[in-house]
């Protein structure tokens, strides 16, 4: 039994549309994580101001990307503490600076740590 030209055309179109839809759905479902570098910072400022603004600035919400300028006060493995109050955890790069260095860090604000009494950032990258 052979298919008519019209039926062949319908089948081919259905197949192509199905593959296209599957491709689009997979693209949406398995979209990669957004990288810190690609996201515009919701807050830019120095570390001391950030601590002050934390309670009053409504743009500072859990999960937003922030960019802060401060002084390195502690180095731990893959993280640094800035101005004794902001803990920044780097995802990929190992920090190669020393205590006392001034730097600009961009990272995701994940919350205030009551146990350590400091702000925590993850997915950090070094801006300068």
């Amino acid at each position, binding site marked *: 039994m052979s298919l008519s030209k019209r039926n062949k055309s319908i089948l081919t179109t259905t197949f192509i549309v199905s593959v296209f839809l599957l491709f689009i759905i997979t693209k949406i479902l*398995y979209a990669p994580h*957004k990288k810190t570098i690609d996201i515009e910072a919701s807050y830019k400022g120095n570390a001391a101001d950030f601590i002050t603004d934390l309670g009053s600035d409504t743009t500072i919400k*859990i999960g937003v990307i922030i960019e802060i300028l401060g002084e390195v006060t502690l180095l731990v493995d893959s993280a640094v503490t800035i101005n004794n109050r902001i803990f920044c*955890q780097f995802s990929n790069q190992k920090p190669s600076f020393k205590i006392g260095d001034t730097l600009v860090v961009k990272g995701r604000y*994940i919350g205030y*740590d009551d*146990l*350590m009494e400091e702000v*925590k950032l*993850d997915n950090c990258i070094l801006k300068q």
Partner: protein
Amino acid sequence: MKSLLIFVHVFLSLGLSAQKFYTKTGITGFKASVEAFESVEAISKSTTAILNAENGEIAALIFVKSFHFDVALMEEHFNENYLDTKDFPKATFKGQLNDFDINKLTNAWTEFKITGTLKIRGIDKVINNVINIKMSNGKIIVNGFLVVSPSDFKIEIPGAVRSKISNEIKVTMNYELVEKK
């Protein structure tokens, strides 16, 4: 006389200050996968944990947002639909290691009973469990796991995905605690 009093005060202060060990980068993971379905698991490398080495009190804090999934959309659903991270950004544990004595720790694993309260989404659950602890190069290594259920914390799983998420969620902990100076 004054300097003697200062010396006694400083000596007493040092003696009374508790010896604490901590981490800010503890690893906590969980797995809620069901066989034959897509893996549902995540890991956080940002857990804060503090152990009072003198009395065995232990506290931990984890920011829910710090859990990383391989699939970005799954992570988004986890935060927005299940854990309500916006309203409940932290999960905490406060507890006690029974019969803890730092002087008896060696570089071999020792089991300790732990009791405490796990708080997720603002809901408390009493935990009675066993964890393994050892001393290695001056660090206290804590390793353990516990099993919880979404219903323990009133996490509602929609019918469409209920069969794909296990009712028994295995939570693993791996913390390297250094002395707080």
